[in-house]
């Protein structure tokens, strides 16, 4: 996908199109002080392309992209085998969203795409990290809230949407790597959404696995 990168992947989920490139492990530029630890480091970079949304985004990262970079790092870290990386090295993960359909769904797809790119680069992983998103929407003001998986931008920004979540799971290990919830949601709704999101991650894991096993290189998931 990206010839210059050590590993790369491209993913389409509905309207969302995400591209991830992984460089490394490569030498981390020596910082000024010797206080920086010598252990290997994972650096994640998340960016919406300026043309990704209906209204143009700037080419500098805004606060939501910086927050998404942190979510990406938290999601990928539990899966990476740091013992296999050399000392004082860095693995750079660059994710670019070419077309978005809601921030939460884009970040969830970015997590999946980044872990496939890490596998393509040969970085040792305990498991693939699969991302999934959901929004809490009542179909009318009096009915109980529905949990909608993979919400579109219309659904996640709807005035009656009470909350949204991003879940990153490692299906083979049956562990959750990262979970963030935003909004005003009851305890039962959270429990129901977690079960649905874990099932969604498991089925997406099967689809991703079929693609990687079928292709030799340049993984494309759609």
């Amino acid at each position, binding site marked *: 996908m990206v010839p210059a990168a*050590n*590993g790369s992947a491209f993913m389409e989920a509905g309207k969302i199109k995400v591209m991830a490139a992984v460089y*490394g*492990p*490569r*030498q981390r530029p020596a910082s000024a002080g010797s206080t920086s630890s010598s252990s290997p480091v994972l650096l994640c970079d998340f960016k919406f392309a300026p043309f990704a949304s209906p209204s143009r985004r700037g080419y500098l990262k805004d606060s939501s992209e910086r927050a998404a970079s942190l979510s990406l790092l938290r999601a990928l870290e539990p*899966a990476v*085998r740091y013992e*296999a*990386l*050399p*000392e*004082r*090295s860095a693995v750079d993960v660059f994710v670019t969203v070419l077309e978005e359909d809601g921030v939460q769904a884009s970040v969830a797809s970015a997590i999946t795409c980044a872990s496939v790119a890490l*596998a*393509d*680069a*040969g970085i*040792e*992983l*305990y*498991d*693939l990290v699969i991302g999934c998103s959901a929004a809490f929407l009542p179909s009318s003001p009096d009915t109980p809230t529905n949990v909608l998986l993979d919400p579109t931008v219309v659904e996640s920004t709807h005035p009656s949407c009470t909350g949204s979540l991003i879940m990153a799971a*490692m*299906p*083979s*290990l049956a562990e959750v790597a990262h979970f963030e919830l935003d909004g005003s949601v009851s305890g039962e709704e959270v429990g129901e959404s977690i079960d649905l999101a874990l099932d969604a991650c498991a089925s997406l894991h099967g689809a*991703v*696995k079929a693609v*990687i*096993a*079928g292709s*030799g*290189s340049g993984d494309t998931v759609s």
Partner: protein
Amino acid sequence: MDTDTTSFRPRPVIPGDTVPIPIATPNPSAESSAPPPVRIGPGLHRRPDGSVVVVKAGVLCCNEAKDGARWWVESNFKRYVPVQGDPVVGQITYKSADFFRVEIGAAHQAQLSALAFEGATKRNRPPLEVGSLVYARVSVAHRDMEPELECVDQTTGRAEGFGELKGGFMIKCSLGMARNLLLPKFPLLPTLGTRFPFETAVGVNGRVWISAATEPRIAAVARCVVLADRRPWGQVKGVVEGVVGSVEGV
């Protein structure tokens, strides 16, 4: 699931897959009481609870031998991890009185001592400059240290084919392609060799140095290596014929 290693067929795996490696139980009627050891190779990791999990995407392979089974994941990546004894092609990036720093495409640059050449003494240093290409062997490779190279065989004191690569052109390829090029049976270089003479130095770090009498010939060899990368062996001869037919002056 019953796992019978005699009927094992290589299968693609991704990180997170568990491998049903049979832990042999001692058979009282067998000749030796100790079960044959099972060796876990690259791409596999043994968890504290004893189960074995795949950590690198690739094809799971198993080799049954009398002294125990060997399991590993065969994969093809671009990033090189130095291993002692590997022949590599590198480029000098820094020169000092005692050593050179060489870029070999690994996580760290490698060190090449100025004395690790045939016939080198403190007064007689190899005439390498920044930007020169060398063919060297990895003498020290450890996770926590910079790798070290040598251009001389320590036991004989001779270069054994290592040293500066003058002229020519270096290209990058995947690690699997570099390993294939070093196999005598791989048809790419022998097929080209029947057309015109040329010289190559293949580094297992995914770098190939090519030298020939004319530039179109160097370009033809480079194109063949790039096009045949990640293609099945059966297509390689066709690729070579296509490139040689289309390059002028070959």
